[in-house]
């Protein structure tokens, strides 16, 4: 092992988060440069590909609206299949973005700063991809607004006691809060792009979206507090969203669904699949845009550790479900689980185990955790495995219900497959547009975690004020003394407002 690697592992000595001795300007140049440089042909090719897949989605949904739900492979017994699988799959992926932006922020994990922007974008696009399924599963999509409690001439209201309605509230709140959080984070970076704009159009458009942000410390104070509050709100929110998604199943009395372990199990699975998606996307994006100095191996390794942790938690949940099915002594429950592992869908079940539980165990080895090709392959496996997890939960519990005469084997129709494939088109089209036109790394946040951002950093050679200024006691005394001053400045602010009105 090299000395650098040894140092990296020494407790108390952290690996640097930004590599290559960058100064503040170099961070701006690296990130803003991506947005400002000319469109590359390879990006256009990728966008073309993504848009073609998006067109498959639009075609499939068009056909669905024209002909009805019958074009999907659903039947009386298996009334939920690829649609809800796709919904839970995409919602789960979205959760890693919120975890990175909110939960790691509350835990003061500074390494989140170079990946949070892209991960939050991923959240928003994944929620959009997820929203397709419940909206179109309604069948008559022009009545989708009936999901919301809107006063109507029939004086009818949705059933507030149903988890499906809780889901409507959870998902729409989640989408809204994610967008607000993302935009708050974007504003200072949009201001950076505005101040670098070379064309009139760029400067006007970015000027409008950056809201006239000028980095005033009075503004930063409110901004940082708001960011903290939004992180504090998003943390229970993200846990509640997947909890409520799991209620869609757990509140029913279907054997295989009616399980109290579902909420924590679903949340762990969501974080697991989401981190796998972030790793897949970041491995490609950092290479394509030369972001290796900002999204370092250390970042990827940290995410792989989370994948290992949550993958093991998911494995534990799979095992405990079996234990409870046996220990609970309910014969229907026991049948559902034996049928899952050894019935007609055993191929799906064991694919799920191999991808989700066995493959991430390779991350115990540092060599694999820090190898780009290995982590890319494993992250793809996890994505596949997590799709299968939802498929297994949904379809194997349904296909053999209480009445053996209605037992069936679900096969997806062409339109089940094309709708799911097409949702990747939507996701990647939006993600490629994001990478091209938005700062993919949070510029101001990365600057804030660089060593030279610490005002007490001694090595900058301007520490001549030394003890008198940067002593904590002094600062406390100063803030106590400052109270009078604060009132005065508020008074001035009011006066200022009056002046501007006058």
């Amino acid at each position, binding site marked *: 092992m090299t000395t650098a690697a040894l140092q990296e592992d020494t407790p108390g000595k952290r690996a640097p988060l930004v590599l290559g001795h960058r*100064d503040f300007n170099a961070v701006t140049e690296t990130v803003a440069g991506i947005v400002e440089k000319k469109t590359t042909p390879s990006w256009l090719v990728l966008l073309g590909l993504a848009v073609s897949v998006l067109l498959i989605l639009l075609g499939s949904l068009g056909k669905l609206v024209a002909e009805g739900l019958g074009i999907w492979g659903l039947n009386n017994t298996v009334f939920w299949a690829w649609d809800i699988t796709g919904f839970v799959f995409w919602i789960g992926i979205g959760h890693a973005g919120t975890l990175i932006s909110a939960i790691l922020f509350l835990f003061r994990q500074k390494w989140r700063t170079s990946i949070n922007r892209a991960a939050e974008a991923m959240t928003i696009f994944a929620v959009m991809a997820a929203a397709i399924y419940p909206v179109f599963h309604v069948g008559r999509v022009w009545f989708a607004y009936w999901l919301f*409690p809107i006063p109507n001439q029939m004086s009818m209201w949705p*059933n*507030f*006691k149903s988890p499906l309605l809780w889901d409507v509230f959870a998902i729409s709140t989640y989408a809204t809060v994610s967008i607000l959080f993302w935009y708050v984070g974007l504003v200072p970076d949009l201001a950076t792009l505005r101040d670098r704009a070379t064309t009139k159009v760029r400067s006007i458009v970015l000027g409008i979206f950056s809201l006239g942000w000028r980095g005033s410390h009075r503004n930063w104070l409110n901004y940082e507090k708001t960011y903290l509050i939004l992180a504090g709100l998003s943390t229970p929110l993200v846990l509640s969203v997947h909890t409520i998604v799991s209620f869609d199943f757990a509140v029913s009395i279907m054997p295989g669904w009616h399980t109290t372990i579902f909420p924590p199990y679903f949340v762990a699975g969501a974080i697991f699949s989401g981190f796998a998606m972030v790793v897949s996307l970041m491995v490609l994006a950092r290479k394509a845009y030369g972001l290796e100095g900002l999204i370092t191996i250390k970042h990827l390794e940290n995410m792989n550790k989370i994948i290992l942790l949550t993958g093991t938690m998911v494995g534990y949940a799979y095992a405990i479900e079996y234990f409870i099915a046996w220990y609970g002594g309910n014969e229907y429950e026991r049948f559902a689980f034996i049928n899952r592992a050894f019935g007609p869908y055993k191929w799906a079940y064991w694919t799920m185990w191999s991808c989700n539980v066995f493959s991430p165990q390779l991350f115990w080895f540092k060599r694999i955790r820090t190898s780009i090709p290995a982590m890319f392959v494993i992250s793809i496996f996890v994505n596949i495995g997590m799709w299968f997890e939802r498929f297994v939960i949904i379809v194997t519990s349904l296909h053999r219900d209480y009445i053996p005469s209605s037992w069936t084997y679900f096969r997806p129709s062409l339109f089940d497959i094309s709708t799911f494939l097409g949702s990747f088109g939507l996701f990647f089209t939006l993600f490629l547009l994001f990478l091209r036109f938005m700062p993919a790394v949070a510029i101001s946040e990365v600057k804030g975690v660089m060593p030279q*951002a610490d005002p007490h950093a001694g090595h900058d050679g301007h520490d001549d004020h030394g003890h008198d200024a940067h002593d904590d006691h002094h600062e406390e005394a100063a803030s106590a003394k400052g109270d009078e*001053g604060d009132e005065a400045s508020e008074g001035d602010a009011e006066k200022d407002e009056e002046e501007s009105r006058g």
Partner: protein
Amino acid sequence: MDKAHRHEELEEEAAKPFGLMGYFLTPGELMHACEKLKNAGYKNFDAQTPFPVHGLEKAMGLPPSKMPWIVLAAGTTGLLSAIALTWFVSIDYPLVISGKPSFSYQAYIPIMFELTVLFSAFGAFFGMWGMNRLPMFYHPSMKHPSFPRATDDAFFVTVEAKDPKYDASKTRKLLEELGAREIVEVTE
């Protein structure tokens, strides 16, 4: 008022000084400068930085943010709205499920939680822009020739002319002593 006269007046207004601006290249220098300005009795001064410099509010003598109160009010409104909504719906369109009472609040807790979070987030989002008086598409400090660096790698300090202690030459001298670069008097 004839056009020429009005033009003159506008010009006169434009020439009114907003304040003196200069910048530093490290957050440490800026913090030092803010402390010195505060100790010299200045109140209407601001710092413009590419990222939040932690501890600067103490150096500047700023009060803590009032955002939590706004969010508390918004969140409470959200919770009360959810209670009102679910209560009204359970009276207006009763659905008896498993013989449970119409207003079974246990089943409405997810709705109450989500609406509390939703309203709080809106309160935080709009409250923050309101407190910061943004969007504001024109601000005198943007006139400093190097202002674009305030969102890149320079740490600006602005002493506003409305400060009672403001004196074009004395303040400039103080900023020079503190080591500020490119000190410019910007106009309103």
